[in-house]
C-alpha cells in the first residue's frame, strides 16, 4: 500500500489586523511538489520562511488560501477526505510539547489505533509499534512523557505517526530540539522505516547537512517561495541560487579554521524588499542583484531535474 501527495500552486495568506487597517501576509507563495512513496523530500529554509505552514497545511491543521493538495492511493484513485488522516501523519518539532503530560505512552499510541480501527489486540499492537521504533515496550508503555528522554519521546511521536498506518509522514524539524548526540539516531530510524515501509517523507529542516544525507531531493524555501529544487547532492554540492550558495557557505568547516569566517560570501545591504514583492524577494540581500531582479522571475532549469528561481539562469546555464 502506497500513497502519493501532489501539491499544486499552494498559497497561504494571513491577514494581520492592527487597529482598523488590515494587511495581507503571504506565508507560502505558489509552491508545487510531489511526495512519492519511498522517497524523502527535504524542505530547507530559515525560521519564518513558511516551511512549517506547508507542513501544517499537508497535515490539515491549516487550510490553504488557494492551490490543491491531492492524495492518491495505491489504486491510483483520489483518497476521500474522511480517510485522509489514515494516510497522512505528522511528527512535530518539540517532543516535549507534542505528548500530553497527563497521559501514558500507551494512551498516545492506542488512541490512533482505535480511531482508525487498526487492530483488535490494541496492547499487542502498541508493543509492536514501540519495538518498531527501537523502544522496549514493556518498560515504556505505562510511563508518562516526563519520565522519558527527548530522544525516546521523539521515537514515541514517530510510532504515533505510524499507528494509523500512515503512508505519508510530514516531519517538521524532528530533531532540532534534541541533543546533538542523539539526532542522527532518530534520523536513521526515520530513514529505516521509510525504506522498510515505502513511506513518502517530507523532511523539514534548517540544517543543510542532514537534508543532504537523509533525503533524495531538496527544495530551498525563501520567504515562502521555492528558490531552488533538485536532487540532494546537486543542490548542496553545486548550488545555483545565490541564497543556497550563501547557506552552503555558512556551514561550519573545521578544516578551514577561521578562514571561512573571515572570507565567506557577503550579504548585500540593498534596500529591503516587501514579502509580496512581485520580483525576486532575495534581491535585498543578494550580492549579485541587478535591475532585472525587480521583474517577476520564473524557475529556470540549471541541470537535470535541477531548477533555480533566479534571473542569472534565464538562458539555462
Amino acid at each position: 500500500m502506497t500513497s502519493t501527495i501532489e501539491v499544486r500552486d499552494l498559497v497561504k495568506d494571513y491577514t494581520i489586523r492592527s487597529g482598523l487597517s488590515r494587511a495581507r501576509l503571504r506565508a507560502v507563495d505558489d509552491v508545487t511538489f510531489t511526495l512519492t512513496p519511498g522517497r524523502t523530500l527535504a524542505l530547507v529554509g530559515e525560521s519564518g520562511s513558511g516551511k512549517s505552514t506547508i507542513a501544517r497545511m499537508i497535515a490539515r491543521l491549516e487550510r490553504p488560501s488557494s492551490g490543491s493538495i491531492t492524495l492518491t492511493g495505491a489504486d491510483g484513485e483520489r483518497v476521500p477526505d474522511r480517510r485522509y488522516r489514515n494516510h497522512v501523519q505528522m511528527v512535530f518539532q518539540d517532543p516535549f510539547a507534542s505528548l500530553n503530560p497527563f497521559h501514558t505512552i500507551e494512551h498516545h499510541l492506542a488512541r490512533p489505533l482505535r480511531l482508525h480501527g487498526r487492530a483488535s489486540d490494541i496492547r499487542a499492537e502498541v508493543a509492536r509499534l514501540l519495538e518498531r521504533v527501537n523502544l522496549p515496550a514493556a518498560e515504556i508503555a505505562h510511563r508518562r512523557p516526563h519520565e522519558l528522554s527527548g530522544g525516546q519521546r521523539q521515537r514515541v511521536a514517530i510510532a504515533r505517526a505510524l499507528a494509523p498506518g500512515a503512508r505519508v509522514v510530514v516531519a517538521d524539524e524532528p530533531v532540532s530540539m534534541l541533543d546533538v548526540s542523539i539526532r542522527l539516531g532518530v534520523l536513521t530510524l526515520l530513514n529505516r522505516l521509510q525504506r522498510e515501509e515505502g513511506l513518502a517523507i517530507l523532511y523539514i529542516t534548517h540544517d543543510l547537512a542532514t537534508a543532504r544525507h537523509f533525503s533524495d531531493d531538496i527544495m530551498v524555501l525563501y520567504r515562502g517561495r521555492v528558490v531552488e529544487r533538485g536532487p540532494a547532492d546537486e543542490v548542496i554540492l553545486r548550488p545555483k541560487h545565490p541564497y543556497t550558495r550563501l547557506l552552503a557557505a555558512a556551514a561550519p568547516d573545521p578544516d578551514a579554521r577561521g578562514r571561512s569566517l573571515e572570507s565567506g560570501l557577503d550579504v548585500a545591504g540593498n534596500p529591503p524588499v516587501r514579502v509580496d514583492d512581485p520580483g525576486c524577494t532575495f534581491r535585498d540581500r543578494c550580492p549579485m542583484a541587478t535591475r532585472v531582479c525587480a521583474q517577476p522571475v520564473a524557475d529556470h532549469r540549471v541541470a537535470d531535474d535541477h531548477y533555480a528561481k533566479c534571473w542569472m539562469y534565464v538562458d539555462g546555464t
Partner: protein
Amino acid sequence: MTNLLPRWSARLGVGLGLVGLITLFGLLGPLLVGDPNAIRDIGLTPPGGGHLLGTTQTGQDVFAQLAYATRGSLEIGVLVGVMATLLSAVFGVIGAYVGGFTDEAFSLLSNVMLVIPGLPLVIVIAGFVPPESRGTWTIALVLALTGWAASARVLRAQTLSLRNRDYVAAAKVAGERPWRIVAVEIAPNLLPLLASQFVFAVILAILNEAGLAFLGLGTSNSSTLGTMLYYAQNGFALQRDAWWWLVPPGLLIALLGCGLALINFSIDEIIDPKLRNRARRRDTVAAPAPTVDDRDPDRVLTVRDLEVVYRVERPVHAVKGVSLTLRRGEILGLAGESGCGKTTLAYAINRLHRPPAEVTAGSVVFHDRDGTDIDVLALGPGELRAFRWDKLSMVFQGAMNSLNPVTTVRAQLDDVLTTHRPGMSAAERRERCQEVLRLVGVDPARLGSYAHELSGGMRQRVMIAAALLLEPQVMIMDEPTTALDVVVQRGILRELLRFRDELGFAVVFITHDLPLLLELADRIAVMKDGEIVEYDTAERVHRDPRHPYTRTLLASFPSLTGDRRDYAREGAR
C-alpha cells in the same frame, strides 16, 4: 499521577489539618450535641459547667449551635464551589476552545459579571427572594451566579494556551473529535487549576454567605456561622460582654478560610513549580583562593576545582571540580549538551547563580589588567556590582529577547554608562554608544530605535554592543547565536573575531555546536555531566579527540560536503 498531587509541606499539613478538623466537627458535631434551639431560662451563661461554650440570650447552647452552623456553612461552601466551578469551566474552557463568536459572547458575559460589584448585587438578589423560600439552595445559587466570572477568565486564558499545544494539534491530526480533545487532552491538564479555583470559590462563598447572613439576608431554614453572628449581633452580645457567643463562629470562619487558603498555596505549586524550592540564599564562600601559579602571565581568569550543587530534594551536582584558565585575547569554547552544566558554570563564574544553586568548593580568580587578583567568590555585594559588566560581561542565551521593549536602545546603553562611569558627560556617553554600535556593525542612527523595530540579528548585535560598552576583559557568551539563521549567525561571529583582535578581550563561548567551535575557538573544553572530559586546543580536538564522548559529539555532525555513504542512506537505493 504523582505530579498532579501537591507535595507534602508543613503548610499543606496545617491547611489539611484545619479543614479536616472543622469538616469533622461539622459532620459529627450535630450528632453529638443536643437540640440547638432548646430554650432554657439560663440566658447568657458564661462557658463552663453543663454548657461548654456557654449559652445565648435565650439560653440556647452555643456549642450545639456552632456544630449545626458549621455544617450549614460547609454545605453552602461546597455547593457554591461545585456550581461556580462548573459554570466557569463551561464558559471559560468551551468558549476558549471553540473560539470565534462563542468565545466573544462568553467573554463579554463574564466581563459584565466582573464589572458588576459583587456583594451589592448579591444583596439585591437575596433581598428580592422572599424570606420563606430563602433556603440553602437559593442562597448557594445566588452566590454561584455572582461568583463564577473571575475563574472563568483564568480558565479561558489557560485553555487558550493549552489548545495551541502541539499535543492538541497531534490529536487533531490523529483524527480526534473536538469534544474528545477538550475532555481527554485539555481538561486533565486543567485539573490543578480547577482544584484551586474550586477551593477559592468555597472560601469566597463561606465569607460572602457570612456577610449576607450578618445583614439578615441569610438562609431562613438552616443556620450557618453567619446567621449565628447575626443573632449574636441582634442579641447585643458585644454590649453585654458575651464573647463566647460571638468569638467561636467568627474564629471558625477565619480558621476555615485560613486552612483552605493554605491548601490552595500547595495546589498553586503544582501549577507553577517555580514556587517550590524557595531555598534561602546561602553563599558559601569557599576556602581562601589558593595561590595561583604565576607561570602564565597572560591569564585573565582562573577557575579552580569549582563545584556547584543544586540543593533540591535530591541534590544535583551540576558542576564537578572544573578547572579552566582563560588567557587574554583567547576564545575558549565550552561545548556540551543540554543539562551538562555549561550554563550553570557560566553563571557561577559571574556569581549569577541563584538558590537552590550553590558554589560548594573551588575558586574563581580574575587577574586584572593592572596586576591585582580579584577573588570573585569573596566579593561583597557592592564590589560584585562594580565588578560585573565592568571587568566581565555576559551575553545571555536568547539575548535578543532581553532588550527592554519600552525604552530605546540609547536609553539602555546609556544606563550602563551612567551606572558604571558616573564621571562621563552626556556627550561622551553618546559618543561611546555610537562607537560600540559601529563596532558590531549596526548603524548608530539606530540608537533611537525600540527593540521591536530591529531584526533578531540586529538585537543580538546590540546586546553584544552593550556587553562591550565598558571594555571588559572577559566576555561570557551563552549560546549567543543559536536562535538566529545561519547566514546572520556567520556575520555576527565574523565580527566577533574581528573586534576580539582589535580590542583584545577574552571570550568564553558556550554552545552545543562543536563544529562551530572548532572553527572559532582557540581552545575547547568539552563538558559532560558536570565534568570537563576533554580540554585542549581546537586543532587537537579536531585532529585527535581523546575522549570517546568528544568523538561521539564530532560524529554527530555530518559534514555538508563529505562522503554521503558515511551516513544512513547507505543501501537506500
